[in-house]
């Protein structure tokens, strides 16, 4: 039995508890039922299958309460979500009743909860199971198929940069950037150094655990969180800088849920910090970047956290960059397809979402798409390379480092 499967509780009991917890949230959507979410949902835009619509995720729970559906009947539906949060923003309940009733549509939480219920009752998705088992074994996600991701290599990306370990401020490097797109953490580290920000790396960094929680393996995810928190505590850390929006969600939402008030660390996303450093004159960008670029709003920054201004401020501060912007509300319906485990379990849908995102960029006549999410950059790069006029995908920190004249090296393809 997997660790996350619960001994002693039957599936029925678990489902009963689950329905009791979520029924009012589900009714908030069901009673409305207007489905404004459908046309902004990146998965629905591709599959057009009503089962994959955010509103179905709530309706299923009402049907479970009525005894019509069981978790076995619905588990597959909930695989079809990137947890981008567009549906929650577009929901009239959030837009127009939220403040008054202190109620907000919580579709992402519902998806995570049903995935967790599925795992607890023994319904596992094969690719997620494999991914989580490998993560559990190696402590980082198996981002390089065929190439071993191991703990002794978790800081290899920093080779030659002479970065200290520990300290009050820790730079947390996510798995994709640490093992695949190493140019992101390298450029980030050099930017921080250039701006005089002192920081260190973790002694023994494990995956943030967020993806495991997103796939329904809550207990395992929590164990990873406990490890990381202990590492930060032993280093005397009070502030964590994240360069990945997924980590930012894990540290600002999952960790506080696990640890409550005890979790008192300051969590900063790199775009917020760098925008501030530029504003305060601590980082000067003087080298021209002769590109025509658009900015891809990472879902977890824009839709989940409302961070859309600081990346744009940074784009505008880069000398001679021609910035072709698409506003952040229009981008509610955009997504790279890389989140929520979709590309692990349903790669063909995720790829189509990526393809459409790059097609939207192509209409702007740009040569570069800039993202601030390492997870989005691999699939978007792959689709960008297939375009008739190839669009290169760069991380915002890579561009900032270019503009600051920093030679960061690393791999960025």
């Amino acid at each position, binding site marked *: 039995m997997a660790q996350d499967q619960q001994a002693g509780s039957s599936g029925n009991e678990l489902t009963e508890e689950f329905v009791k917890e979520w029924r009012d949230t589900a009714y908030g959507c069901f009673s*409305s*039922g207007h489905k404004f979410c459908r046309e902004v949902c990146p998965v629905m835009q591709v599959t057009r299958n*009503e089962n994959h619509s955010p509103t179905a995720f709530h*309706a299923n729970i009402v049907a479970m309460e009525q005894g019509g559906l069981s978790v076995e009947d619905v588990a597959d539906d909930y695989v079809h979500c990137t947890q981008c949060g567009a549906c929650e923003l577009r929901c009239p*309940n959030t837009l*127009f*009743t939220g403040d008054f*009733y202190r109620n907000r549509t919580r579709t992402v939480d519902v998806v995570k909860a049903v995935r967790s219920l599925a795992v607890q009752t023994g319904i596992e998705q094969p690719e997620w199971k494999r991914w989580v088992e490998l993560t559990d074994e190696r402590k980082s996600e198996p981002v390089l198929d065929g190439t071993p991701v191991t703990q002794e290599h978790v800081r290899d990306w920093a080779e030659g940069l002479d970065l200290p370990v520990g300290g009050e401020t820790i730079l947390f490097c996510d798995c994709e950037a640490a093992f695949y797109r190493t140019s992101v953490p390298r450029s980030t580290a050099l930017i921080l150094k250039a701006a005089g920000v002192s920081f260190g790396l973790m002694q023994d960094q494990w995956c943030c655990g967020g993806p495991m929680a997103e796939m329904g393996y809550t207990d395992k995810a929590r164990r990873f969180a406990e490890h990381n928190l202990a590492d930060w505590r032993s280093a005397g850390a009070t502030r964590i800088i994240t360069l990945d929006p997924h980590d930012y969600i894990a540290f600002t939402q999952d960790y506080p849920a696990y640890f409550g008030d005890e979790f008192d660390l300051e969590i900063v996303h790199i775009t917020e910090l760098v925008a501030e450093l530029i504003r305060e004159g601590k980082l000067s960008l003087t080298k021209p970047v002769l590109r025509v670029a658009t900015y891809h709003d990472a879902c977890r920054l824009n839709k989940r956290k409302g961070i859309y201004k600081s990346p744009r401020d940074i784009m505008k501060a880069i000398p001679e960059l021609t910035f072709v912007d698409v506003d952040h509300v229009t981008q509610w319906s955009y997504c790279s397809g890389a989140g929520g485990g979709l590309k692990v379990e349903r790669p063909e849908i995720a790829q189509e979402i990526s393809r459409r995102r790059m097609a939207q960029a192509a209409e702007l006549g740009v040569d570069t798409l800039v993202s601030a999410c390492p997870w989005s950059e691999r699939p978007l790069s792959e689709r960008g390379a297939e375009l008739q006029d190839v669009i290169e995908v760069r991380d915002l920190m890579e561009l900032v480092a270019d503009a600051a004249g920093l030679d960061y090296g690393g791999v960025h393809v």
Partner: protein
Amino acid sequence: MSSVAITDPIVGELQDILGNEGVFTNKSSLYNRTRVPAPFPVHRWNQLIPDAVVLPRSAEEVSEVVKLANRHRIPVVARAGGTGLADGALPLRGGIIVDVKLMNGIHEIDLDNRTVTVGPGINMLKLNEELRQHGVFYPDDPASYPCALVGGRIGTSGWSLIGSRYGHTRDLVISMQIVLPTGEIVEVGDGGGRKLRKSSTGFQLKHLFMGHQGTLGIATEATLELVPRPEAEFSAFFSYPDYDTAWRSTGAMTKSGLASLAGVVLFDEKKVDYLRRDDEAYIPQPDNVRCVVASAMYGTMDEVKPAAKRLMRIARETAANYLGDDVSQGDWASRHDRYATPLHGRNPDGQVVPMCWHCEDAAINYTALPQVTREWHAIVDRYIARYGIFDDWGMFAYTSGAHKPWGDYLVEIDVGIWEQKLNEDTWAAWVSCKREIAEVALKYNGSITACHGATREGDVELVPGEMGGGFDVMKKIKRALDPNNVMNPGKYLLDQAYDPEP
């Protein structure tokens, strides 16, 4: 008539037509193709599920599915957005749901003849995102604009918020391709080519296939009107001390003859009370604001500027108080999202409870508005007092004539229903309330519905009365086109078409 169960060989035949990936029989696919946003008998959900769901990609696939269904006498129910408020897309007898959401392509944009040809699964907002670059738009603008699909707009013969300037769905769909209940694919319009707005050849078949709630066929393509994106928008909100003053002012504005006037909406006193009580987007107004009228104009700058001046003069002359630019522009811009006010319900003790929304949509002539408003509130008040699970969210009256905003109105009473408390008794009470509301509309020579359709319990019993001899014509047409009653059976009392001749 009972439905014929779908057996494995029939599922196999469906898979032959659509491939395995186009056919679904798993339980959650079935449950999620039956629910609608209108008040829904959740306690009976399991009696309303279909046997199979198909997601076709072409008219040919729809045609093959319908032929198969007709051959085996299996009910077929078309479903587009599933956002209708009259249960058109809800299967009463199981069968096959033909879900057209994958047929959402834009087939042709003809800027010279001002048409766009689309699949029925496309949403208007998405369509307009594509059309924007050409300086044109498709002005079918219901409250469900971000989610309704073109196929459902045809099936219900929808109404548009700005229809007084641009027309409603039936005016904006120039022609369509329809799969008939026996599977033939036909083009219907006014006659002739699919881009012609006016012809006198033959019967005017387009209207026959508008608003039939899926009982006469399935739209598989539609050629739609394109209009220039308006250069200017003018919206104005006015307040009044009482309903009668607001009603007279509404009459004066709508009879003004201003062609750019796209819509006028009258908020009654209860609606303003409700917004004051529970809408956090409501911008506070002094107590003497008892009724509100919203108006909007669209067109070229040369049209709208002088027309707006004239409208403001008419308003002043009819005791209207302009509520200012913030309310006028902000609230008009958010009209679509304001359509959903779930969770705003309160039980009679004032406790907040999650409520579903019923939107009555009678068509009523101008002169009958005050009386209908009074009588509807009185009905709902009785049910609130007796059952404790209903709430009165007030009324709107919207201009409803296409290009002619005077004469008749879509009259809406919004009723909250606490769905979690529904059982057979309270559902029956709701249906009875609904019927009383519809009876009032008919008493004043109105119609049960201006835009949703009258296929639900509480409405449908009154349809033969409203239609008179026309209902016999409906039955004859139904029987002629659908000899085996496979197309959305059980709707609109059309089973009667198959009763033996007396």
